[in-house]
């Protein structure tokens, strides 16, 4: 797919991947074998009829293609951009072995973008109101999916979102150059037009508790994500210039720090930035820092092979000039006399025996300490669910890492009339899994509401 040239894009925040032209998309779609037993569908967490929508593209019937997509996926413009297709549908595509799997994600994005170019979406007629009320906690992909599914069934839906903007990680976490915010806003606006009510600046557990909401609503879905940042608990972590990935990305994406001072939330102009971690979050931080003019490097304790980030994003980062220090573990941040970080002390690692995750465990090489001069460090080693809701909801069962325990098939929690899904249940995962969980929960909520 055409991309902005690395030399150009490393200085701007516009989207990196430019998308297929009509001809390019049709050509790609024609390669699809239309398998009788399509393996790609098995790889898709929400079982989109992949050959179905690809056939529509090949026949240039884009509008039907969109319908096929949307039967299973409410947010194709988003998933087409951020889903890890290489380990889902594209990995199971029969053509993979022949070295030419279909670019399913790109075709999905093509259709969604085509739809957006056709102007305002048609608003389907509202179904008869059931008189049932559902509260959705959190405006991320899980919450948006539940809201979209239930409003179409005639239930009244109100989304409560803690931040001042809807979208969850899609708005505050994933940067503009990977997922333009206008796309997320468009989807949220569409839900509002369907009749979903949105209340931002409302922290469930603080502004009102789940129990208080239950007095007014017939059902509650909790999709509050995994927003609590982890730190490494090493010396110097509270020095100025050491951020959590959430802080760094929130300043940039939600608060538009890269447009400071036009937007008043400040972001520092750092010269050398180290990002600790190897996932999508780490790549996003490093590529953001780079775009702000810094020398950006990823410090990761295993090797390139084990990087959990999407391959496409790793390649993008490499092309743009992000430096990678593999098999490296930070052990201490060192400050200057004003309390600002000036260096990071690291250890070299080597790979030992496989651990519980099946990846080879990194072990420190004794005496390999070395120092990297740095004026900022971003800790992107993971997040877990925020405990606010669990702590304020008696009887809601939570797991070891603070995740809400919910039935995998229905999303039911240990509390009556309370469902949960997405990152708050699984821990940090993916957009499509959050949407899939939302869809299952919506089905179960609808069953419950219909039985009343």
């Amino acid at each position, binding site marked *: 797919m055409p991309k902005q040239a690395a030399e150009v894009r490393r200085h701007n925040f516009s989207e990196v991947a430019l998308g297929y032209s009509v001809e390019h998309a049709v050509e790609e779609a024609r390669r699809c074998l239309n398998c009788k037993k399509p393996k790609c569908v098995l790889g898709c967490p929400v079982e989109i009829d992949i050959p179905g929508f690809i056939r529509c593209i090949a026949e240039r019937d884009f509008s039907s293609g969109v319908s096929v997509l949307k039967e299973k996926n409410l947010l194709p413009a988003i998933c087409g951009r951020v889903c890890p297709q290489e380990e889902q549908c594209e990995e199971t595509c029969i053509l993979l072995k022949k070295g030419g799997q279909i670019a399913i994600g790109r075709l999905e994005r093509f259709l969604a973008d085509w739809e957006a170019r056709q102007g305002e979406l048609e608003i389907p007629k509202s179904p008869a109101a059931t008189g049932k009320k559902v509260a959705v906690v959190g405006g991320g992909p899980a919450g948006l999916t539940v809201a979209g599914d239930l409003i179409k069934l005639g239930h009244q839906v109100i989304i409560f979102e*803690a*931040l*001042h903007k809807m979208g969850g990680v899609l708005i505050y976490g994933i940067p503009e150059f990977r997922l333009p915010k206008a796309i997320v806003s468009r989807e949220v606006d569409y839900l509002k037009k369907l009749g979903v009510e949105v209340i*931002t*600046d*409302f*922290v469930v557990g*603080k*502004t*009102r508790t789940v129990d208080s909401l239950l007095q007014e609503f017939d059902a509650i879905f909790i999709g509050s994500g995994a*927003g*609590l*940042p982890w*730190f490494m*608990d090493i010396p110097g*972590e*509270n020095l*100025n*210039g050491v*951020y*959590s990935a*959430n*802080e760094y990305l*929130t*300043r940039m994406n939600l*608060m*538009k720090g890269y447009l*400071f*001072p036009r*937007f*008043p*939330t*400040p*972001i*520092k102009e750092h010269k050398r930035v180290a990002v600790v971690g190897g996932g999508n979050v780490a790549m996003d931080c490093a590529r953001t820092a780079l775009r702000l003019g810094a020398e950006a490097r990823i410090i990761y304790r295993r090797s390139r092979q084990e990087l959990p980030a999407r391959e496409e994003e790793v390649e993008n980062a490499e092309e743009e000039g992000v430096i990678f220090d593999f098999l490296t573990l930070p052990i201490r941040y060192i400050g200057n006399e*004003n*309390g600002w970080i000036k260096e990071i002390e690291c250890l070299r690692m080597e790979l030992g025996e496989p651990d519980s995750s099946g990846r080879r465990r990194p072990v420190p090489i004794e005496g390999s300490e070395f120092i990297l001069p740095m004026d900022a460090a971003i800790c992107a080693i993971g997040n877990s669910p*925020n*405990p*606010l809701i669990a702590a304020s909801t008696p009887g809601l069962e939570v797991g070891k890492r603070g995740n809400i325990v919910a039935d995998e098939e229905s999303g039911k929690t240990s509390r009556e009339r309370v469902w949960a899904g997405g990152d708050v249940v699984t821990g940090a995962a993916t957009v499509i899994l959050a949407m899939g969980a939302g869809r299952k929960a919506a089905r179960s909520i609808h069953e419950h509401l219909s039985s009343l």
Partner: protein
Amino acid sequence: MFKLLETQMIVPNIHLVTLEAPAIASEIRPGQFVIVRAEEEGERIPLSVSDWDREKGTLTIIFMNVGNTTGKLASLRGGQNLPTVVGPLGNATEIEKFGTVLCLGGCYGIGSIFPIARGLKEKENKVITVIEARSSYLCYWEEKLEQVSDRIVSITRDGTKGYRGHVDRLPEIIKSLDEPVDRMIINGCTFLLKKGSDASRPLGIKTVVSLNPIMIDGTGMCGVCRVTVGGSTKFACVDGPDFDGHQVDWAELLQRRRTYMPEEVTSMRTSRCEEHVVKR
């Protein structure tokens, strides 16, 4: 949108706003705060809630005009709207029957200590309220505080009201009371919190301070508000904002609050003057 009902500069550079936020007003407790944005696309800043009316659904906030957002806030008038007021955030101040409690407030803290003093009084504590200000013309809400305090003492740096000096006069003030002080609670700028804690440490009085680091979300999501208390890292927005003043790493807090000093100055320079010149 949250409607402003009343805005007023009560003493030089210290402003009071009353606004409609019924959901927050019905839940708020002493010592909690809200996060506010003064304009669309604006920065999120934390402000303590100094009073409320549960029936009318209103909050009263007192703030000092120190920078971009507080400056913008000060320029708004009744009838205008704030795009964000979210809360109540943080834990409420612990209020029990302690005996004699000394409440110390400076700058905006003279306002935010009020609901704490009121809560303590309701629990039948003896409440001594100490107001700290640069000069007598910067003292406010004394009548309000009198109604919930057994005694009011002022300290002004120029001696135009009450004791002359700063909180280093606290030990004398405490000695002049007829009974021992069982607990001290301080609200205000970081310097006051630190100096107050320094003064009470040798006297062995448990001292609770309401910390004010930089914040963004106020819900535990970003970690910018981290402070070290008793050797471990806490997120002030969800673990606090109240902490034991004798356990706080003050040097770290003061240093972290200075993170954006140069940018704050840029922000003042680029967003004030030009904007007003263009408008005229």
